[in-house]
């Protein structure tokens, strides 16, 4: 079910957390609110859930204005960064909580909890307390608990932030699959651009309380609306006064003369990072740039610090004019 965020502004004292943010989350999508810490994305998520009140603007879910509706009547599933498990209740009772509040019949609750535990793979741990679970298990319990109330939308605040790298990767894939199965409109907050691109089908980049750009991961990567989005979404370097992705650059040793448009420079440093090789170049015209090469290409060029090279752009992706970009 779709979420419409309309002109939301929020201040905490003198600090502006959100400044006139308008965003549409399509029904069934998995949207990532992406941006640096303190940029306002968690605040936006909490406002959608009704845990914080906006100073201005409105929130609609499935067309219904919920701006002043208390959190408990919004039918929104919310997962906290640290999962907020009910420490005094077993896993089963945690998951059953929303149903018990709704006074559903005991047999129905038991059946539903069984289904959800099965779904998140915790059937065998139903009688444990949260303190006896690992981080990943707690995260899945929190998801099952939020899903129990059959939420209209699912909101996840930094869902993988507190997990170690391997578990984080597994849970990302798992969440992707879960979303495919359930098709529930999901918004997740993250500061990790790789995570956002891997999990989400739509990205909304939030910085300093403003929405910078919205679109598919590929769209934003190839056609960033501004410098911030470009530098935040992936590696970037400056060449001839313009920003460019370092993997869109090539180096020439120029035995047959430099190619047209190439800039002359000197290799400052060659760094081997496994498959990738990073080459820092001091440009003759002043300034520096860096070039990302595959190991094979770097070996062919036989690069060493101090060598003279020419830097050129390859396969430049055509940049659409900014007004065409999907800024909803």
């Amino acid at each position, binding site marked *: 079910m779709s979420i419409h965020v309309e002109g939301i502004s929020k201040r905490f004292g003198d600090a502006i957390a959100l400044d006139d943010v308008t965003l549409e989350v399509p029904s069934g999508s998995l949207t990532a609110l992406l941006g640096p810490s303190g940029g306002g994305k968690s605040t936006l998520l909490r406002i959608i*859930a*009704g*845990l914080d009140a906006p100073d201005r603007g409105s929130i609609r879910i499935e067309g219904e204005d919920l701006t002043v509706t*208390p*959190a*408990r*009547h*919004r039918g*929104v*599933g*919310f997962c*906290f960064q*640290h999962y*907020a*498990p*009910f*420490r*005094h*209740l077993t896993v089963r009772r945690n998951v059953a*909580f*929303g149903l018990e*509040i*709704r006074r559903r019949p005991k047999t129905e609750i038991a059946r539903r909890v069984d289904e959800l535990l099965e779904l998140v793979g915790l059937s065998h741990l139903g009688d444990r*307390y*949260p*303190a*006896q679970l690992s981080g990943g298990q707690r995260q899945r319990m*929190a998801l099952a*608990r*939020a899903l*129990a*109330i059959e939420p209209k939308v699912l909101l996840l605040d930094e869902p993988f932030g507190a997990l170690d790298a391997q578990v984080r990767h597994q849970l990302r894939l798992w969440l992707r699959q879960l979303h495919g199965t359930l098709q529930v409109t999901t918004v997740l907050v993250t500061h990790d651009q790789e995570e956002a691109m891997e999990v989400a089908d739509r990205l909304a980049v939030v910085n300093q309380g403003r929405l910078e750009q919205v679109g598919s991961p590929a769209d934003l990567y190839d056609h960033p609306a501004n410098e911030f989005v470009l530098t935040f979404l992936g590696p970037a370097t400056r060449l001839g006064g313009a920003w460019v992705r370092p993997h869109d650059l090539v180096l020439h040793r120029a035995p047959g003369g430099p190619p047209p448009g190439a800039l002359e420079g000197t290799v400052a440093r060659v760094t081997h990072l496994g498959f990738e090789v990073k080459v820092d170049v001091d440009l003759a015209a002043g300034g520096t740039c860096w070039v990302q090469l595959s190991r094979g290409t770097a070996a062919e060029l036989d690069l060493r610090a101090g060598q003279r090279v020419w830097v050129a752009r390859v396969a430049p992706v055509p940049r659409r004019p900014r007004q065409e970009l999907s800024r909803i």
Partner: protein
Amino acid sequence: MRTRWRLPLRLAVLAYVGLLVVLPVSTVFYRAFQHGLGAAWDALSAPDALHALWLTLLVAAVAVPLNTVFGVGVSLLLARHRFPGAWLLDALVDIPLAVSPVVIGLALILVYGKTGWFGNWLAARGITVIFSLPGIVLASAAVSLPYVVREVLPVLQEIGTEQEQAARTLGAGPLAVFRRITVPNIRRGLAYGVTLTTARVLGEFGAVAIVSGAIAGKTQTLTLFISASIDDLDPQSAYVGAVALCLSALIVLTVMTVTDRSRHAWHRETML
């Protein structure tokens, strides 16, 4: 080194506790029953003794729930809301710990006594506070005011608000959040706070001595009864009173410990 000192250290600690607590208390018990159960029973069933015991329990039955509700309320206010003067409220709660109970009693007389601020107003409505039950309850509540707050507030601050917020998103109203999430989380601190409050109310002497007038059979609590019995050279009554006081406190302590243990095994996992 460590093993050489372990034994003397243990003995020193045990001797300290023994000399300060075990020996004196058991002496009181011994003295109370020195002349047999019959003599002890006679002393206890004397009208003034029975009344003192009854009054003490009555005061506790009123003052302890009062301070429990108030203590949880203040803790929630201080932990969950920001308001001007919060620091002042936080500091005021501690005053009964810092100031002598005698001063608290005196202050209560100044406010509620016949010539006090509210004294006339109350007297005109037929309410006597000082030298009667309301005054004793007031004094007991005043001196035992900080205990629940000081036990519950840190727990509330430590657990944070996320569980409560999660419960809200799951459909729980304020009352359900309080009952299902907040209370189970603060239960242990609350139980300890209530135990301390009860112990203090049962044992309070100074403040109650000032406001009650210590009229035998009327406004004499157990502690005052013991003191009066010593003054009257009636040690048997004093010993029996002391035993009754000890047993009351012991019962409270046992009940609290048992309920806390049986209900919440999960604490052992989470609190360690």
